[in-house]
């Protein structure tokens, strides 16, 4: 709504079940869901935990999806946004609880307001982004901009790892420190759902280990990989939402 070069996207509900609302630009769009190319670029943008005892708005940051869509070559396929309630792979109890969730309209029933809003804002990440790796020589102060700082975890010094973890003796895990510049009031969402921009670990990588495991009464070395153990990149983001990264269409 605030961006000069994007008109506000007005969509209509084309598929409407209790658990799925598909928002699509409805003017003259050919039927896309059969197009294999589109299905190839389907990505999960973000997830929210919803309590079945609450009712209200959830803000979902679709920055990465919009960025990816903008990089597609013209003529580009329309951007499809789908919000759905996870239904698969749940136990009988949880799935019955999930069936209680309903999408609801903004205004009173039948007031014609029942449309989600897509608001596009742009921020110059040179001002509002993170600053890569921290300067090891500079102390971290209140004014330090979000950066990645070295943090070494010495496994050899840990009692529980003794005689069990064979490799590595320790590893650089890094951590994200510092603060993020907040956008001016005029740009921030009026909805009370987005807190301040935070310095988060936006990319992480796994840590392989060799541990001693019992097999057939004997101890054998075994490789195991621990996910999300090392921070690769720190970024400024709202509410932990993924941040845009250079995607190749």
């Amino acid at each position, binding site marked *: 709504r605030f961006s000069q070069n994007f008109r506000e996207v007005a969509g209509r509900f084309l598929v409407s079940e209790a658990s799925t609302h598909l928002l699509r630009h409805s003017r003259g769009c050919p039927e896309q869901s059969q197009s294999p190319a589109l299905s190839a670029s389907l990505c999960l943008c973000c997830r929210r935990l919803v309590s079945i005892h609450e009712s209200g708005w959830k803000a979902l940051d679709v920055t990465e999806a919009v960025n990816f869509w903008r990089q597609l070559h013209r003529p580009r396929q329309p951007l499809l946004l789908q919000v759905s309630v996870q239904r698969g792979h749940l136990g009988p109890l949880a799935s019955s609880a999930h069936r209680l969730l309903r999408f609801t309209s903004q205004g009173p029933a039948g007031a014609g307001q029942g449309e989600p809003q897509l608001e596009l804002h742009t921020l110059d990440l040179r001002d509002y982004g993170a600053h890569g790796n921290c300067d090891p020589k500079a102390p971290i102060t209140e004014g330090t901009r979000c950066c990645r700082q070295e*943090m070494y*975890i010495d*496994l050899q010094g*840990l009692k*529980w790892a*003794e*005689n*069990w*973890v*064979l*490799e590595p003796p320790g590893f650089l*895990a890094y*951590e994200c420190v510092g603060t993020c510049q907040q956008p001016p009031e005029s740009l921030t969402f009026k909805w009370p759902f987005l807190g301040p921009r935070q310095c*988060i*670990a*936006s*990319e*992480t*990588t*796994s*840590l*392989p*280990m*060799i*541990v*001693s*495991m*019992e097999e057939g009464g004997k*101890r054998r*070395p*075994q*490789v*195991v*990989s*621990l*996910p*999300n*153990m*090392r*921070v*690769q*990149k720190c970024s400024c983001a709202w509410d*932990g939402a*993924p941040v845009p990264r250079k995607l190749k269409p």
Partner: protein
Amino acid sequence: LTEEQVLSSLLQQLHLSKVPVLGKADMEGLVIPAHVRAQYVALLQRSHGTRSRGK
């Protein structure tokens, strides 16, 4: 990241509920075979190359 988080993730990956009780004797004669070390090095190189999306 804390050491407790590392331990919790390790127990989860190995489907263990607690840390095995091991002594020096369990280490005697324990050698890391070449194929296990090769697998470890390959995973290490891959983890430095690929990135997964954090929170």
